[in-house]
């Protein structure tokens, strides 16, 4: 049981709209395809055994070094602007 759990590539925040043109294709790419980067990777973590916040962690997948941690809510606000 871990304090933080991993939920995948931060691109999952950019969910396509259901009534988009080519929504089917966009959802296929959104749900199944991953860049799977070796190096600096932005990803979603959930603070399950803590304050239950969603985080965007910038991490190096080659050596597990954590470079930056942001609250997902803050980042999403930035995306909406």
């Amino acid at each position, binding site marked *: 049981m871990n304090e933080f759990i991993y939920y*995948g590539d931060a691109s999952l925040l950019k969910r396509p709209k259901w009534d988009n043109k080519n929504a089917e294709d966009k959802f296929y*790419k959104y749900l199944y*395809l*991953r860049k799977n980067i070796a190096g600096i990777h932005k990803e979603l973590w959930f603070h399950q055994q803590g304050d239950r916040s969603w985080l965007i962690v910038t*991490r190096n997948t080659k050596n597990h070094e954590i470079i930056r941690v942001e609250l997902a809510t803050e980042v999403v606000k930035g995306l909406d602007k």
Partner: protein
Amino acid sequence: MYYNFLKILKEGLTNNNGWKKTWQNPQVKKKYNVIIIGGGGHGLATAFYLAKEFNVKNIAVLEKNWIGGGNVGRNTTIIRSNYMLNENEAFYEFSLKLWESLEKQINYNAMVSQRGVLNIFHSDAQKDSFIRRGNSMIINGADAELYDVQKIKSIYPFLDYENARFPIKGGLFQKRGGTVRHDAVAWGYAHAADKLGVDIIQNCEVNNFKFKSGACIGVETNKGLIEANKVGCAVAGSTSLLLSKADMTLPIESHVLQAFVSESIKPIIPGVITFGAGHFYISQSDKGGLVFGGDIDGYNSYAQRGNLDTLEDVCESGLALMPAISKARLLRMWGGIMDMSMDGSPIIDRTHIKGLYMNAGWCYGGFKATPASGWCFAHLIAKDYSHKLSENFKLDRFKNGYMIDEKGQGAQPNLH
């Protein structure tokens, strides 16, 4: 036949001076019929079956490090065919049959040991699901037996049967499952492929593909351009990186899976045991070390080493099953990079580029699949259409909705 009893006797009497290299270090040719990228179990098996079963000549295996240095040497050496879904079970049963005749095929002692795999269950509901899986195995020609507690006690008296939280209620046993010496699988396939004229090129890293009018005609390596009519990729956790050179984005995440070995102790575990209430599997090597593992670490990684929280979790599961191992000291641990697919099942398919083929998505079940994976991938490359047993392992199944999701976890690779 190169290795046999008389040869060993003769070499024993003549100071072992007559052994030749198991495989050569050939010069790289300018062009091959088929290039296999990746000198691991799957790549070497593919090359061997291409030469042996499909009569393809002029094959090369390119390996960026030394052969067998990746996941084929970084697993817990278990073979079994105890899946439930038809698409998987028939394939893995074929693989287990190939394991049974492997050593004769490759003339190499891979220490295939069918010592039995026991999946323990801890509740009535779990018993029902295991019986269902056992029936599915039997339908597909595999063997499965239901063991009650008494039977398990007679083999493994030291398990924690009275555990209040996870009492042992029985187990699903596959007698033909077991272990294989993993390094010898890579060496044995290399030995046999080499004897059939396959060029095994080590320290040869592929940096890019060479394309001409939409077809793949070779690879750019640190030893220069090598041309080929067909190129097959069998690079496990590096698949996304390699195929990004062909502008492909794949339904794969790379994750690290750890394995652990204790100090050597006297024989205690005759077969393979898996814990049903957590994720833990254990066997004992012929040298006496307890070989065990559990879940992947759970986050994208290319580091080939894991973290301690996973070790703690694995050991907690182990102690819940067999408290006695708390006395054993851990000797070694390592990590391998798994190509975790979005439905937990593999991909053996052509790509959208002519002449370029892929073999990936083995998650952490790749070792037991080695012979069948090699056979089916060789079939695909040689004949340009899928083997019957791998025709469901298509890349486009995620788009078309034909996922093969053994555990029903959905598109969450770290849960498969």
